[in-house]
Each structure stands twice: as structure tokens, then as C-alpha cells.
């Protein structure tokens, strides 16, 4: 069951990621990216990261992608113009991509032989309670620095989006 769920959502994630790269219209890319993020949230759940799965849905698929879609529609972004690629790129690009991915997979298998099967529910450390405790004790300083970072980002976004610039 775990294998089936992993394969289904991994394939959805890869297909949507390919779609992000090959679509010419930004809206299509954005919708495909939402698909990637949703399937990654399911994979997080399979790995026992409940809090991160919900945060992924709310923060990424909710807030960030809505921001992207807003900007795309605000700017009325059209399709990218097709560019002619060289003959070598057309012929060699796809086989080289497959070769590169196969090589990367081989090296991961070779140097990280962690063949422990992943069971759903075997790791119970991903609840909001445990992550919150880690955030507010061990990682308190990075957490506070993050809040300052977000404050700077808000001020920066407001300054950049003013009329006068």
C-alpha cells in the first residue's frame, strides 16, 4: 500500500514538474506547480511529517501560489515566444537528461544504501506539538531571527511596490 501511494504521488509530482518546465504559458506552469506541492504534501504525510504536510498546503499551495497567480494576472503575462534551438540540443537534450538522472539515481543507490523501508506511521515525531517544542527551545534564536526576516521582507515588498519607483 505504501509503495503504491508513493509511486502514484511520485509520478504525479514528476509529471507536474516536467509540465512546469515545458509549458509556455505562466498560468499553466503555476497550476502544475500547485500539483507538485500537493503531491509532495502527501509524501510528507507518508514520511510522518503531519505538521509540515499541512504547512506545505497552507503556505505553499495556498499563500505563495495565490501570490504568483495574482502577479501573473496583474501583469497579463502572455505565452513565451518559442525559440529555435540548435540541432545538437534537440537531438541530444533528452537522452542526456535521462542519462544524467540515471547516473544521479545510481550514485544515490551506491553511496546511500539506506534500504530501510518507509512505513506510514513508523515515525511519530512530526506532530505540531513536538515541532513546536523544538522550535521554542532548541531553535529559539533562529525562530526569532526568522520573524525579523519576515518583517524586513514585508517592508521591502511595500517599498518596492509603491507607485513612485
Amino acid at each position: 500500500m505504501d509503495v503504491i501511494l508513493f509511486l502514484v504521488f511520485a509520478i504525479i509530482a514528476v509529471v507536474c514538474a516536467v509540465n512546469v518546465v515545458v509549458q509556455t504559458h505562466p498560468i499553466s506552469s503555476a497550476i502544475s506547480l500547485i500539483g507538485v506541492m500537493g503531491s509532495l504534501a502527501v509524501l510528507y504525510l507518508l514520511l510522518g511529517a503531519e505538521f509540515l504536510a499541512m504547512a506545505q498546503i497552507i503556505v505553499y499551495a495556498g499563500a505563495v501560489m495565490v501570490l504568483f497567480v495574482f502577479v501573473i494576472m496583474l501583469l497579463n503575462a502572455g505565452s513565451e515566444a518559442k525559440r529555435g534551438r540548435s540541432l545538437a540540443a534537440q537531438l541530444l537534450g533528452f537522452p542526456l537528461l535521462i542519462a544524467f538522472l540515471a547516473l544521479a539515481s545510481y550514485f544515490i543507490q551506491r553511496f546511500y544504501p539506506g534500504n530501510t523501508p518507509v512505513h506510514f506511521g513508523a515515525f511519530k515525531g512530526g506532530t505540531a506539538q513536538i515541532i513546536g517544542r523544538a522550535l521554542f527551545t532548541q531553535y529559539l534564536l533562529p525562530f526569532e531571527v526568522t520573524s525579523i526576516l519576515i518583517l524586513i521582507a514585508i517592508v521591502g515588498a511595500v517599498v518596492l511596490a509603491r507607485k513612485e519607483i
Partner: protein
Amino acid sequence: MSGPPLNWYLILSAVLFALGVAGFLFRKSIITIFMSIELMLNAVNLSFVAFSYQLKQVNGHVFAFFVMVVAAAEAAVGLAIILTVFKNRETLNVDQVNSMKY
């Protein structure tokens, strides 16, 4: 009933990261380049969570959480910059935004 090996998660993460790099390098629209960056950040988050499962520690989740926060802040500032660039230059093509290049 056995689950998928942890390697599969890492390989999926590598594939997603490679696709993000490809989008970053090949696309010309600045918005799509930005979305490729988000894709790469998501791929790295997946391997953080996978290692966190393997080591049975919560630290990877905390790192992934920080990455998420930084990505949200980066998206806000980056999209504001895109808006400003479009207001000044009327284009989203990165080939035409080159005044710092020469």
C-alpha cells in the same frame, strides 16, 4: 507489507531538483524562473524530511519549516521586484532586462 525504500524519496528529490535547475536555465520568463526556484526549494525540503525519518529526529522538519518561511518571504520580495521591473520596462523577458550586464 513493506514500504518503499528511503532511497526512492531521495531519488525523487534529485529528479525534482534537476527539473528545477532545467527550468531555471532554459526558461526566459522571469515568473517561470521564479517558480523553478520554488520547485528546487521543495525538492530540498523532501530530502530534509526523508533524512529526518531515517534518523528518527525532528531537526529535519524544523529546517524544512525554516526553508518554507524563507521561501515565502523571498516570494513576496521577488514578486514585488517583478512588478517594479514590469512597470519600468514593460517586459518579463530576462534577456531584455540586462542593464547591469554591461
